[in-house]
């Protein structure tokens, strides 16, 4: 290529390079700090306030959303007749508690198993069931309409079969673990339950500025 022609291309190339640099710098500086961390699930931004509810704890006492104020609450919805997926998730949550405890991130964390099957799961059974997976775990359930109300707000799906009059029915349910922040707002939904992954994601969330 003759030298004259090359000189013609040079300014065009420089301009393009400068534009690219400017774009990348601008794009980078604007988006990176505001970019929410990626977690194995969904970070709820802004956190979603939860309407009040009434549930029944493992001692048979009713409680409301205020009980979750001032702590991080990990929630899991399931039922004790579930032979496989619920125990697996609770075992993973049990390991998560141990990791967080080791990292001193557990003091302000609570873990609650909510049974969506109040017809078969008596509150008293739930305490024993939850504690089997981890001594820190608690169990709760509630009236069917209260459970539906809370689950809907949190985007948790479950379905008790219509013909569930016998003892033997199975319940379709979301397998997600939910994280409620100290202001009783939905902060995250974990769709992957590997304990190390949830612990890493929880750490990222704790590092976020409070909003």
């Amino acid at each position, binding site marked *: 290529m003759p030298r004259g022609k090359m000189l013609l291309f040079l300014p065009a190339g420089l301009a393009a390079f400068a534009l690219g640099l400017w774009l990348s710098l601008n794009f980078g500086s604007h988006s990176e700090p505001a970019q929410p961390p990626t977690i194995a699930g969904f970070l709820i931004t802004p956190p979603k306030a939860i309407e009040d509810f009434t549930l029944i704890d493992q001692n048979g006492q009713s409680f409301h959303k205020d009980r979750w104020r001032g702590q991080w609450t990990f929630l899991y919805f399931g039922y*004790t007749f579930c032979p*496989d*997926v619920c125990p*697996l998730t609770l075992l993973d949550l049990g390991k998560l508690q141990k990791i967080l405890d080791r990292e001193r991130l557990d003091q302000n964390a609570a873990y609650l198993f909510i049974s969506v099957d109040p017809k078969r799961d008596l509150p008293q059974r739930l305490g024993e069931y939850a504690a089997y997976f981890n001594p820190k775990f608690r169990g709760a359930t509630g009236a069917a309409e209260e459970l539906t109300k809370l689950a809907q707000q949190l985007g948790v799906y479950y379905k008790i079969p219509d013909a569930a009059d016998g*003892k033997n029915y199975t319940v*379709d*349910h*979301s397998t997600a673990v939910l994280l409620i922040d100290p202001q009783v707002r939905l902060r995250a939904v974990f769709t992957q*339950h590997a304990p190390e992954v949830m612990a890493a994601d929880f750490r990222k969330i704790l590092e976020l500025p409070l909003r």
Partner: protein
Amino acid sequence: MKKTVWLLLSALCIPFTPVLAAEPGAIQIEQPWARESPPAAANGAAYMTLVNIGRETDRLLSASGEVAETVELHTHLMENNVMKMRKVEAIEVAPGEPTALRPGGLHIMLIGLKQPLAAGQTFPLTLRFEKAGATSVQVTVRGKDAAAMPDSQPKHHQ
């Protein structure tokens, strides 16, 4: 005379029957196990790997046992993070590829445990295959951490 020979021959076979019992026809059953049941849990599940060493596809038609009121074949369907457990009529066991019954997937559902499953104990289940016929297996109950078994890892969380 002939009878004695036959008797002797059958007697010779007896020591081998337990081995045969665990391998009905062309199906090998590997590592039947169940997780211990949490307190207050009414149901359980049994897992195993079915290996078809024959040439034809076989089907597991049913499982039965005294361990629970009802024993059924079940599978899990994960749809949009919703877990649906469903009864299946049969579990196909094709040659060449082991069929894994494992946490979060196919399993033998034990509905209404007569007693809690305690780690270390075993219980019998009878499996009935379409071609290989019926066979009995001893299911070993493992502790709660058995859920984290390496062979159940790849798919147990999606």
